[in-house]
């Protein structure tokens, strides 16, 4: 049994680092924090610490998950009054959910989607339309946003199935642009000015009200942060279980070799459609929540550039790695806010970063690891005794 200490220590360090990163204001401080992080990672790799931490996380997944969630909650409570920081965290969580959707599509089944922002937008606009024109409980916007994204995505299924590589990418790019144009000319949806999204109300609790418990008064974004965190946890668990299942195996197999997969009975269309639909559902659901957070949405929130940001999150983080997506989304959201200088050049920065990553670390910052079906299923150092934990966990005998 590998000790949980390295994993827990790592979670603590990451929490402290995250809090200081969010707290610092001066650009010089942000820069030094980044340099420190890079140095720690390089040194940690050199001295084998990274491997130790990885092994510990793999063997103690539940404890690490709990530590990570507590870390996030501690950071949220630390900044509970800072509207802007809470909003940033909320945005990062929701983008993570959308990027996890892309991970299913792109990372597992190999279906490219350059219209991530459009599916996010479908969720936002669903939230807007449902709260404006209907009397449905506003919490229903979350599943409805996801369903709408999945449903509208289904018009893309045929072209996506029939094309491959660059062509499939072009199809989705075209869809993203069409979607924006459609929003701009549609008066019911507010045209270029956009549409208001009413706040989320759950059991009479309006999410826009600040939370007050005795002396504790949290930002009016705090409820949304909790909601976004909940969505993120659900999506994360969903994506991870999907990967660790026969479904994940089938998706990986068709991405890697379509001909061999077909000869072993895998229905290529079925798995691609499932991946595409599930991914769009996650993006749409995140979008609905994002719409409530923003309060007002316009077509310009969902440009091709925003879709590229989602793709770059997946590429930077590590294609197919849920943790990588989480880390990359946090950086992509927070970094430009901290470095006001780069705000205007952020697309240039992302583009440069993506090119560098693709050149020097094509598998991403946190590369996807070997597939495993249970936490700690693969333990390469244990040799032949591996049979034992598997038999135990598998409960086969």
């Amino acid at each position, binding site marked *: 049994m590998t000790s949980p200490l390295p994993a827990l220590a790592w979670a603590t360090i990451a929490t402290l680092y995250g809090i200081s990163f969010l707290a610092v204001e001066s650009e010089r401080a942000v820069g030094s924090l980044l340099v420190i992080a890079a140095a720690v990672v390089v040194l940690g790799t050199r001295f084998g610490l990274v491997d130790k931490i990885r092994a510990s996380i793999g063997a103690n997944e539940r404890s690490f998950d709990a530590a990570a969630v507590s870390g996030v909650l501690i950071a949220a409570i630390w900044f509970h009054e800072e509207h802007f920081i809470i909003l940033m965290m909320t945005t990062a969580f929701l983008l993570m959910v959308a990027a996890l959707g892309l991970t299913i599509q792109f990372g597992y089944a190999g279906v490219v989607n350059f219209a991530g922002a459009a599916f996010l937008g479908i969720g936002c606009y669903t939230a807007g339309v449902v709260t404006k024109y209907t009397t449905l409980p506003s919490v229903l916007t979350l599943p409805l946003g996801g369903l709408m994204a999945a449903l509208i995505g289904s018009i893309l299924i045929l072209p996506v199935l029939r094309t491959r590589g660059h062509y499939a990418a072009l199809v989705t790019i075209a869809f993203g642009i069409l979607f924006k144009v459609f929003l701009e000319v549609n008066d019911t949806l507010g045209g270029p000015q956009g549409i208001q999204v009413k706040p989320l109300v759950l059991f009479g609790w309006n999410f826009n009200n600040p939370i007050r418990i005795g002396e504790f008064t949290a930002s009016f974004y705090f409820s949304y942060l909790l909601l976004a965190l909940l969505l993120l946890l659900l999506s994360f668990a969903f994506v991870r279980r999907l990967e660790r299942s026969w479904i994940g195996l089938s998706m*990986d*197999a068709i991405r890697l070799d379509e*001909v061999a997969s077909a*000869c*072993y009975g895998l229905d290529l269309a079925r798995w691609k459609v499932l991946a595409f639909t599930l991914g769009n559902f996650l993006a749409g659901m995140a979008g609905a929540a994002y719409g409530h957070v923003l309060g007002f949405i316009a077509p310009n929130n969902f440009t091709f550039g925003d879709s590229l940001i989602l793709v770059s999150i997946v590429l930077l983080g590590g294609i197919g790695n849920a943790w990588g997506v989480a880390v990359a989304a946090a950086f992509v959201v927070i970094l430009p806010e901290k470095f006001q200088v780069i705000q205007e050049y952020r697309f240039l920065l992302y583009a440069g970063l993506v090119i560098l990553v693709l050149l020097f670390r094509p598998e991403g910052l946190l590369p996807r690891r*070997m597939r495993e079906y249970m936490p700690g299923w*693969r333990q390469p150092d244990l040799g032949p005794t*591996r049979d034992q934990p598997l038999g135990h966990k*598998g409960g*086969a005998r």
Partner: protein
Amino acid sequence: MNAALLICQGLTCRFGGLVALDRVDFEVNEGEIVGLIGPNGSGKTTLFNVVTGIYGADEGSVRFAGADVSAATPQAIYHAGITRTFQRSRMCLPLSVFDNIMVGNHKRLNHGLAFNLLRRRAFAAELGRHCDEARELLAVFNPELATRIDVPAAGLAMIDRRRVEICRALISRPRLILLDEPSAGMTHDETRHLMDDILSVRTRIPGLTIVIIEHEMGVIERSTDRCVVLNYGRKIKEGSFAEVASDRQVQEAYLGVA
């Protein structure tokens, strides 16, 4: 006598002007090992591709176990009980040995969304069962490989990759397995080992029918009950290895006219 397991009649496959298969009649009886030989480009792999539904036949029919499968998809062929290996190894290299074998086990895995996502305990039990089975099968080929079931396929030697590929073809318990040049890229010794393994698997799975494409005549001589020779897409000879090898036409096809 019962009807043959696989019956191809007048099978023709053209690519533009090139006739890759020209009215080939081909039968395989249950439990037989049939060698499919012929010079490069004679249509052996094309025959496999047509039987497994990767290419559609332009003319002729394929019947398997009494059912017409001429127009069946590769997926349907697999479900009917035919599996194959590929001449140029087609494995998912980043995936583990176990994962690669499980791809071949597709029809016996439960793909239900609820089962896979929510019933993790039941999933773990199924996983454990398949894992034992995969190990057992691998152990027939190479006991050492059975202990390395979770290493990436990319890290294996060529002969072990072939073994995994054959296990992938065998794990779903097919009735007919098509081996496309299993010895390609291997040394003499390795080829001999692999053939021993295949023959020992066959004694364990009674009734398994094998069609094997091979250039290594030693392999064909040792392992097959019957041979079919193709040349320029036509069947030019059929019979036991000794008959085929002594045939003038076959010798010419392989060696050129003396």
